């Protein structure tokens, strides 16, 4: 479990990027839910934490594919593959992320630092 931040420091409508490998984006939706997904878009090297959060979806800041924060599914090209989702735990007013064991869907040309 990775501690992300105190709950109070991530207001609704905001996102946070965790500098792990690969980076993870944590979102606090307007409805008060918290989700974590890989931060890197599956199309190209864009940070989804910089994207636009609307409901349970984030729109990639570069080419506007939208990812469902609950499932990771993408709505339309240019991204084609879903983004990996992670479990979120809130304990003692702190947000934690449980990183997924599934392989990430990184875009072409982006590799894990440990493999670089």
């Amino acid at each position, binding site marked *: 479990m990775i501690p992300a931040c105190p709950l109070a420091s991530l207001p609704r409508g905001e996102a946070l990027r965790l500098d792990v490998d690969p980076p993870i984006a944590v979102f606090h939706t307007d409805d008060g839910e918290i989700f974590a997904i890989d931060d890197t878009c599956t199309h*190209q090297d*864009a*940070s989804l934490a*910089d*994207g*636009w959060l609307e409901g349970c979806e984030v729109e990639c*800041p*570069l*080419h*506007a594919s939208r990812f469902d924060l609950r499932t990771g599914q993408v709505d*339309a*090209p*240019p991204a*084609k*593959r879903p983004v990996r989702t992670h479990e979120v735990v809130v304990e003692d007013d702190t947000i934690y992320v449980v990183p997924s064991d599934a392989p990430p869907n990184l875009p*072409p*040309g982006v590799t894990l630092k440990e493999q670089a």
Partner: protein
Amino acid sequence: MNTICVVGASLAGLLTARALRSQGYGGRIVVIGEEQHRPYDRPPLSKDFLKGAIGEADLALEGEDEEPGIEWRLGVAATRLDATARRLTLSDGTSLAADGVVIATGAAARTLPGTEGLAGVHTLRTLDDARALRADLATARRLVVIGGGFIGAEVAATARELGLDVTLVESGPAPLAGVIGLTMAQALAGLHEERGVRLVRGVQVTEVTGTERADGVRLSDGTHLPADVVVAGIGAVPNIAWLGDSGLELGDGVLCDEGGGASVPGVVAVGDCAAWWDPAQGRHHRIEHWTGARQRAVVAAATLLSGGTARPEPARPAYFWSDQFDVKIQFIGHARDADTVTVEEGDPAGGSFLAVYRQGDRPVAVLGVNQVRLFTRWRRRLETAPVQAG
């Protein structure tokens, strides 16, 4: 409707076919495409694909779980449409009658007159063009790019990254000036020059020299620029010649209402070939950008399925991006509507800034250069602002 025929198997055609399905249409969909390829993404052709950073498989627009139920007729062009009868004639001699027709034939690169048959002169629109250019650049030392639009500026940047000696010739005062305005175009020109692209501005190309193969470019001031490869990035023309006797109203593109409906019922047009009525601008115009096709595919499908009664939401300002070197350029709106432009974040000299274009106090366009997060906020602001009739 039992049969809908989509002409053009690229971005706009694919997304309209998908939108028809997601809006509940269960009938037959036939997609006719002149190219042999399944729909692929064009923006990387001047960027990562040209550079060799990604391969052909990465260009596919369809995912692995693509829904079936579309009949593809690839390598076949539509040569004629009778819009009233909704009958298409195809290049293989067959014809096809449909209840609805989607025109998504895009645009073709404008070519330099007089360079036909001269090796080493390229335009860039298709995968085949990109393959040929990539192969030619691999053995070239000097590239001259004619035209400082987006494609010209991107090819210049990519070739520079590949280590070529690159000159960009622009007849106007600075590359991209027509779209982003002169002040900001000057700032971006600096980014190119710092990265080693030689810019020649305010002159015309009078001739591409060479006998069998191009060996240079002659300019209106008499200068001769030697070149191993020449790329003409001088704009694109809508692919509508085949519609000449269709009965549809044509202008710079297929003229459509604000929902994408063409002048004859049962026919819609979408993507780079379509000039939709823009009530805010008070004119028909084409939008030659990716997100334009994406947003309008959904609207065009609704127009077709409703028989033209669906009320489209007011069109949003066009958004596009361009990648040149390590610079991510993002733009939304119409620079020509603005009377002022101010840098509100960063510094053009530093390679990262955001500029807002205003008419009075109303923001009408925003340019972001390596300002992805802030630009996204501005883009949303412009997209959700009430549309004003202009």
